[in-house]
């Protein structure tokens, strides 16, 4: 069945009893169910991260944990979700019943990227037989860690990062297990908020259950099963055909984060070697730095998710709609334990969705950009968030304000400039940013500036999206600010094919006439009237800036206002008359020729 590539499978319009039309319909419906579960949570949740930012992921797996569909969400939440399902299957073998829901957030038992990402798993039974698993995972507003917020940079171990729930049954045959729930609510801050969001997520799994059953009722289990098997096979063969088109060889990629949060200012590095040989592709993380004391460790499953997400970007556009087990079967991941890419209990991993999660994607992109230059892609503006926590002066209520406004847009890809304003690379732009009007209504903060920063795009034939200038003032009282959810002050995302990498992010706290640098991976304290000023990098570039169309550079200066006149000549080698705004083509050519010769 595998010979002859993907087209050989479709040698007739009908495969056994299953026609191709039904197959495609079943597959699309399963993907749609995932999107709908996600929309339900997004619309009914109450936390900022869920309902504004869409930090939510939903997927479907077969009864034995084969990946069926993971179409939209945050990569580390769910691409490796099969391992969670398989964990529950082994822990609860023989006692999984219709109407059960399991909750898990333990990175080492049931597999979560970091403790705030709570996964709710529902076994879906059809006519009394377990057929599917639905999982919805979201970042909860609090998870009872030593410090509020999800990215505390200096934990003692993984237990300091939150209450660890090792896949427990919270609903048993439709009955909420109140004893368990009370224990959970008692161990987190903002229990009522988390309770609401938990109900929204549980409701979504119920919705998924209804929809899946309706699908099976319509087509019959045999056809649904055949459709899934066939789709997985088609996906695997298409992925292999895509790999075959890449240049054989071994390609190295690496990416560092600024430090591990405990030992400051010593970068931690992810390394991958991607080997392509004919239709086979392997990703080897063996040379990554050892597991760290701080919060920058990724579990094996986090690395798997991030690596697959990074790889998928380089396969054909149709495979972008076919993230399933077939794609996973086409790839080998080599990842020995004891590394930052495969940490062992009790190593903390609170930073993993960003540090080193983003770095895993970047390293894979860097390697694959060499293997397929016509799909080269640069690193994105590096995430540079903060979690501010304190009490609202109006009603004394505790709040956690997860900053998601300051970092820059996407990196360039071969053929296109970077997308502006996108959420960070670890989310593949599934995260949506908040409105300023929303922030100012909810939190005792006033935003003074939030706009593109000049000369912040990584230069290239195609340049990155812009970085930001963001300035905000504390209208509340004494508050904490943890900068664990970020990186990129001393380490940078890659450029590709001669494009420039990202540039430094910076953060300053202004108190009266004092200006204090507020570094990443630390906790800082703020007073009433303090201002925070962040200046961030945009995405990296692809191709040499000297090859950028001079007309595009002119537009960057005078229309898009993202590049200064000085940078036009210094970085891009384009000579523009300041008064008339006209490109001097001759002078430009001369400058570029000289620069290209390295003079």
């Amino acid at each position: 069945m595998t010979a002859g590539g993907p087209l050989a499978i479709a040698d007739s319009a009908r495969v056994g009893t299953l026609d191709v039309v039904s197959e495609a319909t079943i597959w699309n419906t399963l993907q749609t169910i995932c999107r709908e579960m996600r929309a339900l949570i997004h619309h009914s949740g109450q936390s900022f991260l869920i309902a504004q930012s869409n930090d939510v992921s939903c997927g479907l797996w077969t009864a034995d944990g084969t990946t069926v569909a993971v179409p939209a969400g945050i990569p580390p939440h769910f691409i490796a979700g099969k391992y969670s399902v398989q964990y529950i299957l082994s822990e609860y073998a023989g006692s999984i019943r219709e109407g059960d829901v399991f909750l898990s957030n333990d990175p080492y038992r049931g597999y979560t990227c970091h403790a705030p990402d709570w996964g709710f798993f529902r076994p879906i039974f059809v006519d009394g037989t377990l057929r599917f698993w639905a999982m919805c995972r979201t970042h909860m507003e609090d998870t009872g860690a030593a410090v509020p917020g999800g990215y505390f940079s200096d934990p003692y171990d993984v237990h300091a990062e939150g209450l660890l729930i090792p896949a427990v049954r919270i609903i048993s045959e439709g009955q909420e297990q109140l004893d368990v729930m009370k224990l959970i609510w008692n161990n987190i801050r903002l229990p009522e908020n988390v309770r609401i969001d938990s109900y929204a997520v549980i409701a979504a799994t119920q919705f998924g259950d209804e929809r899946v059953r309706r699908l099976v009722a319509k087509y019959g289990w045999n056809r649904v099963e055949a459709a899934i098997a066939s789709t997985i096979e088609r996906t695997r063969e298409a992925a292999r055909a895509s790999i075959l088109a890449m240049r054989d060889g071994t390609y190295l990629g690496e990416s560092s984060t600024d430090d591990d949060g405990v030992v400051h200012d010593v970068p931690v590095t992810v390394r991958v070697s991607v080997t392509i040989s004919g239709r086979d592709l392997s990703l080897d993380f063996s040379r990554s730095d050892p597991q760290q004391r701080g919060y920058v460790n990724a579990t094996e499953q986090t690395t798997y998710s991030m690596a697959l997400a990074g790889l998928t970007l380089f396969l054909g556009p149709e495979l972008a709609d076919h993230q399933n087990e077939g794609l996973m079967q086409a790839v080998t991941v080599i990842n020995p334990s004891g590394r930052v890419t495969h940490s062992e209990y009790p190593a903390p991993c609170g930073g993993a969705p960003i540090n080193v999660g983003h770095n895993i994607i970047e390293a894979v992109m860097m390697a694959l950009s060499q293997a397929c230059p016509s799909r080269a892609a640069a690193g994105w503006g590096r995430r540079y968030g903060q979690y501010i926590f304190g009490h609202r002066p109006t009603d004394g209520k505790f709040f956690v304000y997860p900053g998601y406004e300051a970092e820059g847009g996407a990196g360039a890809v071969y053929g296109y400039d970077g997308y502006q304003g996108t959420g960070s690379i670890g989310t593949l732009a599934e995260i949506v940013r908040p409105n300023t009007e929303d922030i100012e209504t909810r939190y005792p903060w006033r935003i003074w500036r939030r706009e593109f920063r000049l000369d912040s795009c990584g230069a290239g034939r195609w340049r990155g999206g812009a970085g930001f200038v963001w300035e905000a003032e504390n209208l509340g009282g004494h508050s904490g600010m943890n900068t664990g959810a970020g990186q990129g002050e001393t380490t940078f995302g890659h450029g590709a094919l001669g494009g420039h990498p990202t540039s430094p992010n910076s953060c300053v706290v202004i108190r009266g006439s004092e200006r204090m640098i507020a570094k990443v991976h630390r906790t800082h304290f703020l007073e009433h009237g303090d201002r925070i000023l962040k200046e961030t990098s945009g995405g990296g570039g692809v191709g040499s800036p000297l090859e950028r169309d001079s007309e595009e550079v002119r537009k960057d200066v005078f229309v898009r206002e993202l590049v200064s006149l000085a940078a036009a000549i210094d970085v891009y080698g384009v000579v523009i008359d300041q008064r008339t705004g006209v490109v001097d083509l001759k002078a430009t050519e001369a400058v570029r020729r000289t620069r290209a010769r390295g003079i």
Partner: protein
Amino acid sequence: MTRTGLPQLPTSPPWQRTAVVSGDNPASDPWFLSLDVGGTFTDLLVMREGDELLAFKSPSTPNSPAVAVFNVLAKAAAALNLSESDFLRRVHYIVHGTTLATNALIVGGGATVGMITTAGFRDVVEARRGYKNIRTSMYNIFIPPYEPIVPRFRRLPVQERVGPDGVVWQPLQESDVGRALEKLTSQGVQSVAVCLLHSYANPRHEQMIAEICREEYPGLYIAVSSTVLPIWGEYERFSTTVVSAYLGPTISGYLDLLQAGLQTRGFEGKLLILQSDALVQSPSASKARAVALARSGPAAAPVAALRAAETLGEGSSLIAFDMGGTSLDVCLIENGNIPQTTDGWIGDERVAARLIDVKSIGAGGGSLASIDMLGLLKVGPQSAGADPGPACYGRGGARATVTDADLLLGYIDPANFLGGEMRLDVDLAARAMAGLGAQLKLDAIQTAAAVYETVNATMSDEVALLASRRGVDIRDFVLVAGGGAGPLHAAAIGTRLDLETIVIPRFSGLLSALGMLAINPGVSSVRAYIKRMTDVDLQEMERVYSEMERSARSELGLDGVDADVLLRRSADMRYEGQYHEVEVDVGDIPRTTAHLAEIAEQFHERHGALYRFDLRFRPVQFLHLRLTVEVKTRLRTRLPVEAFDPPSGIRTRRATRFRQCNFDNRWTVTGLYASDELRTGDLIEGPAIVEEPNTSILVPPGFTAKLARECYVVRRGTP
């Protein structure tokens, strides 16, 4: 003046028999027109009292859409043996819908826009909250970056700042406004969007800027965010305002030209423009709030579907299914309510104004068939468009489309496409289809059957999706189909979705134009009202609703007039802390806490139905108050079915002409009927094809179609 005193109402609705004196007196026998300017064709329906509807079509003229309008009007006048002015003088109303705005948003062609905005925030509309994956998978990063309508160099800051409670943090620096306007006008800007933070809470600074604009640059088109859409959330508000500024000059210019042209041709009646929320408005209101026309095109088809089903007594849960050349517009109508949304995107632009909730799917007659890298047959969303069009058009299109499949299967008569205006080439279709089929090892006809099935599967899946999203069972719905390609695919869609009844109105080839004949004038408005249920001051709430009603009445020209209006009050509500709202009907203005409690109860129920849970232990909050004022006219009434009142009983008609059609890979002798030879009460048995103006209705084997009250009712088995 008129009996009702309404400036925009017909003096004598033509189908109200009591009001009509006699057909012999032309002066008392007014006509009504509906005009639908689409991307490919401009459609005209002429409605005359006691007489059959007349349909006319003319190719659209995208560069100057009014030309096609006057062409089609001339065509109608000629067909009626009247001079243009004699024809137009008899017309009391023209209801007009246009895809002009939608097309401008999708392919460009709007105004050069400048923006004046709060200093420090000029990139809101370009960074657009980070939305990238609107129509693409998250795993696809090879897409061009979004190009904003207003480039950065024309987004100019002014020093000012208002807080979320409307308090001025920093007064407006008026000298900044003058400087910005000078710079923008020197760059040839035609239109200015005024977009300041928190202006929904305090519009004063925006108003000051607008006043300066009007005084110093009276020629500029101005769109002010607190007027265009006074909602909370700057990205959604600004984007909608920019869209309005972009469309304003184009829409104004077009409507001016149209009004002037109609006037010189002798038209003395009223021109009403179809809005995106399926109400009609005067040209002047449409010019002032151009974003309201953003979905003017597809807004009328659901109305036609609803009226057709009402006329038939076929229930009120409907799928309005309008399948044209490039796309399928589908709308799910529950219990007679045409759904509206504020979550819309048009092209790459976020439009948060109220739009009819129509889903556009890239599946139409021109949709291209292909094999994807997984070896699966795929139809759409790419389309061959009008040029080159399907292979059978013979205009150089080499790739197989849905229309080519329909033709090869015998469903379309090559000699009678668009009433014979265009001849289709079967050989070219077969060649294109065979080329595609070679990859699947299928012959041309087998491939055509697979294309037909695949596009039907795509469409029915999307329809099922709409239903599941609302938590309703699609099998309880009636499919009402129209558009050039819809009636050819309707029965197959019905079978896939397990629907009992399919309704195809006569003139369904012009479904939108048909709907326009049944739409009321009206205005929908919104005000931010951010308040906990327990903190509501009933008098304050009444003031907000009353103020909206006053301004809506004045906009509709109803000041001091005792008009018969429908008021629909609603509120966007949520549990405190949530970020998304659920719209709940409010009924009368709440005057008691008991009424507020009822509203809260409705909210809990709606939340439960939508999301499978409620949170009765949480405080409930209002976010926006909404009001729709609709003028009850006899415009909104059933179509003139009386002329076809049936003699009692059903007559089975036998075909006299036949053609071979392919069903399930079998060639079958199929009866042919012309629509004008059928009368109410006629029953035909499938396989059959009914040739309607501009479309054909396919009645597959095992189905019957009955003509009842101006609609074909298609069912599996006997009726």
